[in-house]
C-alpha cells in the first residue's frame, strides 16, 4: 500500500501541489491524470525518493521496490546492446553462480511475459517503437518491483501497439498482483484499463472514479 498524507511540494516559492492525500492499495491499477506541468512526474519522483518533498508524509509498506518506466529514453539507431543485454543492465553484479542462474531464470521469465523472447538478440536500436517500450518495461520488471510506474509509456505508439502493451501490463497486474500507476493523457486508455484515477488539478490531487473523467481534464 502507498499512503500519501498532507504532501506539499514547492520549487522555491512556486507551489507544485499542497496538502495532497490519497491511498493506493496493493494490486491496484490507477491512472494519474491532469494537465502538463500539474505535478504528476514530480509526485512520482517523490514516491521513488528521487525528489525531496517540502512537507507531509509518504508511507510505502514493506519498503516495496518501485519500478519506473520513464517518459523519454535516448536510444538511437546505433545503440549497440541487444534487447536481453539492455534488460540485464538493471541487475545487480554478482559472483555467486546460484544468483547468476537465478538472474537468468528471472530474465527469461520476463522476456517470455513481455513477448520479447524471440527478439532478445535483436539490437535495441533497430527495434520498433512498441518493442522498445516493451524492453523498457521488461528492464523495470527485472528488479522484481511491487509497484510499477508507467510515465506516458504509450504516448508515441500506434493504437494497436498501445493496446498490446496495456493488455500486457493488465495481465501482470492481475496475475502477479503488481500495483500499477499509469501516468497518461489518454482518456480512452484510462477508462479501458484502470478503475480509479487521481486527478491533478488546482495544485492538489482528487481521487475519482474513471467514469467521471472527461477530455477537458487533459487539455
Amino acid at each position: 500500500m502507498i499512503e500519501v498524507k498532507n504532501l506539499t511540494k514547492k520549487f522555491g516559492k512556486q507551489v507544485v501541489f499542497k496538502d495532497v492525500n490519497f491511498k493506493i492499495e496493493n494490486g491496484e491499477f490507477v491512472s494519474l491524470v491532469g494537465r502538463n506541468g500539474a505535478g504528476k512526474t514530480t509526485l512520482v519522483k517523490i514516491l521513488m525518493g528521487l525528489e525531496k518533498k517540502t512537507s507531509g508524509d509518504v508511507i510505502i509498506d514493506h519498503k516495496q521496490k518501485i519500478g519506473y518506466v520513464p517518459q523519454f529514453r535516448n536510444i538511437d539507431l546505433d545503440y549497440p546492446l541487444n534487447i536481453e543485454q539492455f534488460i540485464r543492465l538493471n541487475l545487480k553484479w554478482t559472483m555467486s553462480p546460484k544468483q547468476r542462474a537465478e538472474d537468468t531464470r528471472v530474465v527469461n521469465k520476463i522476456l517470455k511475459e513481455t513477448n520479447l523472447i524471440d527478439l532478445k538478440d535483436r539490437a535495441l536500436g533497430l527495434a520498433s517503437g512498441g518493442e522498445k517500450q516493451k524492453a523498457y518495461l521488461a528492464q523495470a520488471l527485472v528488479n522484481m518491483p511491487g509497484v510499477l510506474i508507467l510515465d506516458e509509456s504509450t504516448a508515441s505508439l500506434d493504437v494497436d501497439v498501445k493496446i498490446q502493451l496495456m493488455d500486457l501490463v493488465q495481465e501482470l497486474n492481475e496475475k502477479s498482483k503488481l500495483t500499477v500507476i499509469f501516468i497518461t493523457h489518454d482518456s480512452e486508455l484510462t477508462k479501458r484499463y484502470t478503475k480509479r484515477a487521481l486527478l491533478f488539478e488546482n495544485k492538489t490531487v482528487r481521487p475519482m472514479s474513471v467514469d467521471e473523467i472527461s477530455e477537458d481534464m487533459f487539455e
Partner: protein
Amino acid sequence: MFGYEFMQEAFIASTFIAITAGIVGVFVVSRNMSFLSHTLSEIGFAGAAFGILVGISPLAGMIIFTLVSSIAVGSLSTESSRREASISAISSLFIGLGILFLSLSSESSSYATNILFGSIVGISAKEVHQLLILALFVIVIFIICYKPLAFDSFDHIGARASGLNTRLLSVIFLITLALSVSIGAQIVGSLLVFVLLTLPGATARYLVHSVPKLLMVSVGLSLAGVWLGLYLAFVTNWPVTFFISAFEVIAYFLGLSYKNWKLSH
C-alpha cells in the same frame, strides 16, 4: 626484439596502457564523450609542458591538469550542447598555454615532440612502474563500479530512474578518464591518445552486442594495435604512433563496413 631491456619495458607499459584504454574507451563512446577525451588530451599537453616548466615530471603535470579540468567540465554543465561549446573554448586556451609553457622553459624542442607524439621506446624502468600503478588503479575502479557504471553509460535515464547516484558515477568516470588520457599519452602522445581511447571502443560497437563482449573486443583491438605497432616500429624504425593509429583506423572502417554489410543482408 625482447633482447633489449628498453623494448621489454616499452612492451609491459604499453600492454597495461592498452588494457586500460580499451576498457575506458567502451564507456567514453557510450557516454558520448569522445570529444571531451580529445580535449583532455590537449589539456594534458599543457599540463606536461607546465610540468617541465616548474620542474616536476610531465606525467605529474598532465595528471594534475586533466584531473582538475575533467572535474571542472563535469560540474560546468550537464547539458551536452552547452558542454561542447564550453569545452572547445577551454581547449583552445590550453593549447595556447602549453605552447607558452614550453617556450618559457628552456628545454629542447625534443621534449615537446615526445609529449605530442609519444615516447614509449625511451621509457625508463621508474616510469614503467608509475604507469603500471596508475593503470592498475583505473582497472580496479572499473571492476568495483562495473555494474552501476555500465547501467549509467548505456542507459542514463534508466539508471537515474532506478535510483543510482549518476552524478557520483559521472565524477568517478571523469577521474578515470583523466588518468587514462595521461597514461595513454605516454605511448601515442597527447595528440593521438584519442586514437586509443575512442576507436577500439567505437569499432567494438559494430561487432558485438553485450557490455562484456564490447569490453573484450575493445581491449583486444587496443592490445593488437599497440603490440603490432611496437613490433613494426622495432623492425622499420618508423614511429610507433603511426602504426597504432593506422591499425585502429583501418579496424574501425572494417568494423563499419561489416555492420553495413550485415544490415543489407
